[in-house]
């Protein structure tokens, strides 16, 4: 239990550190892969909290997502390697203000929420998988199908708008 707590705290701090790294670098690819580092740290937090499936899923999905983001950042920015000291941040006052308000809000919420008793033992990983499958096929089916269908429509629409019609 103590070891788990230490691991959760460690990966939490690592996630924040990588998150800061996203804005502290001038290289687009470093920035994107730093965000991947933060996501990996969150995945490891899930693993430390015995949510094995969520953790593995997080590790799997984020690797490709963040790297795909990296290539788009590289394509669209004029200085992807950060060689000419391009500024990564903009609208500093607004973003600092928004960050402070958001962070304070999250802190207040985390203290105000009645979390209930801390559960020491999670179900076995196999049972978690089973429960998740049952959830997806019964109560959550409509939600997930709607979300999936919406994303599919968005993908097709985005592809169609990107295609240049040849005459």
């Amino acid at each position, binding site marked *: 239990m103590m070891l788990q707590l230490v691991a959760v705290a460690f990966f939490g701090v690592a996630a924040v550190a990588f998150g800061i790294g996203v804005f502290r670098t001038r*290289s687009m690819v470093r920035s994107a892969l730093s965000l991947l580092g933060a996501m990996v740290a969150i995945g490891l937090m899930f693993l430390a909290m015995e949510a*094995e499936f969520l953790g*593995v899923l997080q590790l*799997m999905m984020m690797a490709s997502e963040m*790297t795909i983001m990296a*290539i788009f950042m590289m394509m669209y920015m004029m200085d992807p390697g950060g060689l000419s000291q391009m500024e990564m941040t903009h609208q500093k006052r607004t973003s600092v203000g928004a960050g402070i308000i958001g962070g304070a809000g999250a802190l207040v919420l985390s203290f105000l929420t009645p979390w209930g008793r801390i559960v020491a033992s999670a179900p076995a990983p196999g049972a978690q998988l089973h429960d998740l499958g049952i959830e997806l096929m019964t109560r959550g089916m409509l939600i997930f199908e709607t979300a999936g269908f919406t994303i599919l429509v968005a993908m097709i629409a985005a592809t169609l708008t990107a295609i240049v019609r040849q005459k």
Partner: protein
Amino acid sequence: MTVLAFALLLAGGVYLVAMLEAWTTTGRFRPLAPFVRGFALLGRESLVPRQPDRLFFEIAPMLLLVAAVLALAVLPIAPGAIGVDLATGALFVNAALAYVMVALVMAGWGANGAYSMIAGWRFLGQLVAYSMLIVMPITAVGMRAASLVTTVIVTSQTTMWNAVTQPLGFVLFCLAAMAVCFLPPFDLPVAPGELAGGVMGEYTGVRLLVMRLARLLLVLTLAVAITVFYLGGWLGPLLPPWLWTITKTLLVAAAMLGVGRFVPRLRDEHLLAWGWKIGIPLALVNIFWVGITLLVVSP
């Protein structure tokens, strides 16, 4: 399984795969060749290109190695002989293999060379083409075993191998596995003769040694994965279980290394088009087929 046994198994496996690779490329069987090549690389200067992204350049070979080892750690060699028996083992293999792509993109970007960068991003495109063909056949395998635990997947094949009951998934997974290890005809990120070595082009000396070692380990990992998911893992008569796994793995590795040499390298847009227009529909048909057989044949 103790750490020492696991390390010995890794070393032995990598050695055998290295020999197989030399055999498929040169046609000669030389037991000492891997050692000679390895020591030769150790003796060479390890150059760092001008203005590299030093962090990525140094991390990439290690990350490739770690990704391959992590994926191998959840695959069983014999009953009880498994690194970590995860409840989500089959999914974890895929999660670890996703970092192969991250490592190659890092290697391509970090070296600050045009060819290596193109090669790195090319492998990202290759991942988009093959990743669904890794996940969806594994889904069908998991359906039959009713579990993602790799040892349960092996025991679910006691009556019949998955390669026989799901031939479509087997073929798709094998092709995708070759694409993961960027073996010919899927060797787009190294592309000898076209990109001057690609992601490995700027690596020399000991760094190149780590990179090559990681690639061999990757071939070994995928060969074990094919054995475990489709060829019944350790199951087999007479011989001890671990020997069955090793025999099957080596045969699969030899096939993976050898077969592609007779096919011209695919172009990346063809790979993407075929992966999505042919591969994914076939993978869906495979899932449907397995579902039908599970419901009808063996209720």
